């Protein structure tokens, strides 16, 4: 399959993520959008990896083809850890101010 399709898909997901972060005020939705952006990049990484795996260079070195795919797993593990921290923060925020609206938390101002 043509690599362009993957690039367009990733770009779309990433843009949706950005717009979501920009326009939504609910912390959980923003958080989900951030995850969306992260996974868009992840998807792109896998796609490029697959593209290189069928090239000539990869055939000479067997490990080359799987490098990026293993890297993706690392990213997913880190993302999972990040999600747990992020959700914990949001839970604490809700406990303290009884809302998950990010604009409510602008106490550094003034």
């Amino acid at each position, binding site marked *: 399959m043509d690599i362009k399709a993957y690039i367009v898909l990733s770009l779309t997901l990433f843009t949706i993520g*950005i717009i979501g*972060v*920009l*326009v939504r*005020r609910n912390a959980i939705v923003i958080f989900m959008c951030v995850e969306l952006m992260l996974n868009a990049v992840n998807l792109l990484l896998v796609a490029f990896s697959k593209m290189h795996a069928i090239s000539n260079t990869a055939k000479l070195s067997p490990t080359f083809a799987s490098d990026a795919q293993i890297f993706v797993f690392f990213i997913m593990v880190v993302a999972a850890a990040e999600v747990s921290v992020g959700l914990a923060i949001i839970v604490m925020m809700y406990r303290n101010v009884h809302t998950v609206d*990010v*604009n409510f*938390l*602008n106490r*550094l*101002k*003034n």
Partner: protein
Amino acid sequence: MNNILQLVWLIPLLPLVGFVINGLGRKSLSKNLSGIIGSAVVLASFVLSMLVFMQVKSGTTASLHYFNFLELSKFKVAFDFKIDQLSSLFLLIITGVGFLIHVYSTAYMHYEDGKDFAKYFAYLNLFVFSMLLLVMGGNYLIMFIGWEGVGLCSYLLIGYWFRNTDYTDAAKKAFVMNRIGDLGFLLALFWLIAKVGTLQFDEVFSSASLAKLSIKDITGITLLMFVGATGKSAQIPLYTWLPDAMAGPTPVSALIHAATMVTAGIYMIARSNALFSLAPLTQTVITVIGLATALLAASIAIKQNDIKKVLAYSTVSQLGFMFLALGTGNYVAAIFHVMTHAFFKALMFLGSGSVIHAMGGEQDIRKMGGLHKHMKITSITFFIGCLAISGIPGFSGFFSKDEILSGVFSHNVVLYSLALFAALLTAFYMFRLYIVTFTGSFRGTHDQEHHLHESPKAMTIPLIILAVLSIVGGYVGVPEALGGHHELALYLTPVVKSAEHHLTHGTEYTLMVVSTFLVLISILFSWLKFRNYKIEADAKGFGKILQNKWYVDDIYQLLIVRPLQNVAGFLNKIVESKIIDGAVNGLGKLINYGSRQMRWLQSGQVGAYVLLMVIGMLILFFIQLFL
């Protein structure tokens, strides 16, 4: 017996120690103790100087190297002391007269607070230290350190009573005028370094390095050095600080502004005689300036009514005589006169201090008179000083002044007659001072008359010693015409090469008789004019010009001080407050305004920040893609 020369470093160090003790302990030391410390260190230096003098007299001289003061690649300045005939003689004058004046000060300053009293002695010790450094230095830089040090101490001591604004102004005037001269001296040193590459006396005066200098170089260097000397030794055009310097305590005037510091310029030129002898133009300049100063100052002294001002102008005039001698190449005579002048002028200053002490601070001779009855020792010693300065045969001033005059006579007869005239003026105003102050009847208030008393022993004994020195001090230089051998000239021969003057003994004898005769007439005239002194109305015509010191101070005020003040005022009011302050404040205001405008960016809304971040990223993205 070389070990005495090994101890030479103690001579300047002891007064420095005295300065440190008195300076740091000024709040805890008792007045007696600080007076004793201050005097004792100078006495110890005097004893050492005496031993050193004996050693040098027996023919040993030394250049003592201690450490390298300055090292700049090839150019090195060592911290050296040079002990030879010239410096050992000055050591004796400085520590000897210095010690007497320290002792005198313990009585004269007794009414000061303990703290101020110790401060006074600390400054005085520091002065002695700097002056010793000046004459002992083995190169021009060490000399210059002492040169600046004495200038500083002079400033500190003139402004000793700093609560009086006039006095601090006088101190500032002295300092600024000295600095003008010092700049000349400093430039001369730079010139020497550039051409010869060393400041060491022995090396500079060696024929090898003199050969490196063209006649233009030598003339330039010596003229600049002379500028330095005019500042320190109060010659035209930089002399006006010295009369004002009388604001300081009287013993200070005696030590710094009569006996020692003001002779630094003469010492420097005598030390550099190898250079000056090669620069005829400079010698002419020195002769003319010296003679002009001698005449101008003597004429002013005639009409002054402040006892210390008369002595101050007399000092300026006598310094002029010394420069006249230097200019005619008669270095020995100049040094001789430095020595005798140190004795009789210190004597007269201390005598005037004794008078001021008795009068309760009054310095105006119009309010004195008839003091001989009340203070016999002061009166008699002062009289001896007058005889010495006037050049009455047998007193020290006669020998030194006569030597200068005969040197000038062999040089130029016109200069001689002018110098002789200045000498006659000297006798005239000195006896005017004596007659008005000590004879006749008392013209002050009744309270003052009641208060009159002879000064304590600590003041009279230095007077007596100085009076004896003023009489016998001249016998070290009895000329051959009077059957002497001029021991001083013989002693100084290794260091100072005076120009030969060829006068037969008969001519010299005639000159002596003529000058003595004229001086006696001058004294007689003075006596006739002032024996029935009454307070006179303000002088008119020429007398008024003299009374106002030829308006030199006013001319300086008009030509130099005022324009400088105007420039300073312009810089202060316009440049400083408008341009510089405007620029600085404007910058501050601009930043303040800018920050206020930028503040809305920091809204505290996370969304806004993210939006800006995305916009920034997009811009970078497009730059990367399309540019």
